[in-house]
């Protein structure tokens, strides 16, 4: 069953069909929201809001793009609106730490404690530098690296050409590399 079939059934009031659409795209929507918001809880809330909004706007889906792209565009806007909210602004002012710490997961798969510690330190530095990137570069980079979206889908969500997406990804990597070198992490020090 294709997405378009499920959309047609959902438009006629079939809630199970829309439930299947949610199950199909929930990870992509969640990861897009998390790329914008950083924290797991905020990403879950934004994903839920995005699906509810998509259900209410099913009538406006014309099929010009795929349902997944249309849905992710809604999710991205929801996440960006949430990011601009007063609560997050206040959190940032008083010391925002909403981004979940993922560096701790790295050490588990590494061979020795020394190597694990060095890799963890490098990973923390990389994460810090990714968060310091300008929003346009960071958003594009995280969307593209999330593993769920191709460059063309990222371009559709952000409403920019595919070439711009590629340049932003490359520029984000270059800036992170440069800052890591300035912080004393030589290339290949992992």
């Amino acid at each position, binding site marked *: 069953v294709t997405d378009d079939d499920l959309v047609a059934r959902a438009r006629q009031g079939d809630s199970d069909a829309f439930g299947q659409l*949610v199950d199909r795209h929930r990870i992509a929507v*969640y990861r897009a929201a*998390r790329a914008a918001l950083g924290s797991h809880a905020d990403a879950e809330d934004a994903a*839920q809001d995005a699906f509810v909004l998509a259900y209410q706007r099913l009538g406006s889906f014309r099929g010009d793009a795929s349902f997944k792209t249309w849905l992710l565009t809604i999710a991205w806007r929801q996440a960006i609106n949430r990011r601009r909210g007063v609560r997050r602004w206040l959190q940032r002012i008083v010391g925002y730490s909403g981004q979940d710490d993922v560096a701790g997961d790295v050490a588990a798969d590494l061979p020795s404690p020394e190597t694990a510690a060095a890799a963890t330190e490098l990973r923390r530095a990389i*994460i810090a530098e990714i968060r310091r990137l300008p929003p346009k570069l960071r958003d594009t980079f995280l969307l593209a690296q999330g593993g769920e979206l191709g460059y063309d889908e990222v371009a559709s969500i952000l409403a920019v050409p595919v070439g711009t997406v590629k340049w932003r990804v490359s520029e984000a990597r270059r800036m992170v590399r440069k800052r890591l070198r300035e912080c004393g992490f030589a290339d290949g020090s992992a």
Partner: protein
Amino acid sequence: MVQREHDDIDREIDAAARGLTAGEPRGDLSARVAAAVDRRATYRPRPMRWLRIAVPSAAAISLVLTILHVYDEPRATVPVPNPRSVVDATPRGGPPVPPSDRREAIGARTRLPAIGSRVQRESEVQNGAGLENADAMGFSALTVEPIQVEPLAIENTPTLDVIAVEDVSVPSIEIDQLVQNEPAQ
């Protein structure tokens, strides 16, 4: 070699980026979405709901304004004489009254400070009354010496005989003349 190192660090950067967006929502997301959709579908907007907030708010605001107005009114009706009115209140024909005495005479109070500095009296200077807080102000090394102030003498002032009050006779004006002098309409 350098390219390989670049690739290594790029792999690390990409892995960190994937880690930042990793994870999955809870499995009951579709159920929560369905519940949220149902809630919104059964939501009935109440068009007059705003009245529940607006009416008490307006009543509270008007009460506060009324209280403020009642308490503020007596203070607002206290007349504050301006300098022109003080001058006008000076009795005509009598001797001129010094400005400071004038103010005390009519009991007027103004918020403006008196122009010019107050000169200490001779007794205050001699007794050091004006320097009671000298220690606190850091002037403890200063000593107060008595000053002999001679009374000022005013010379070459015209005698009061020069000033005389003359009777001024004002011719009475007839009502007819007033009527004639009115401008024609």
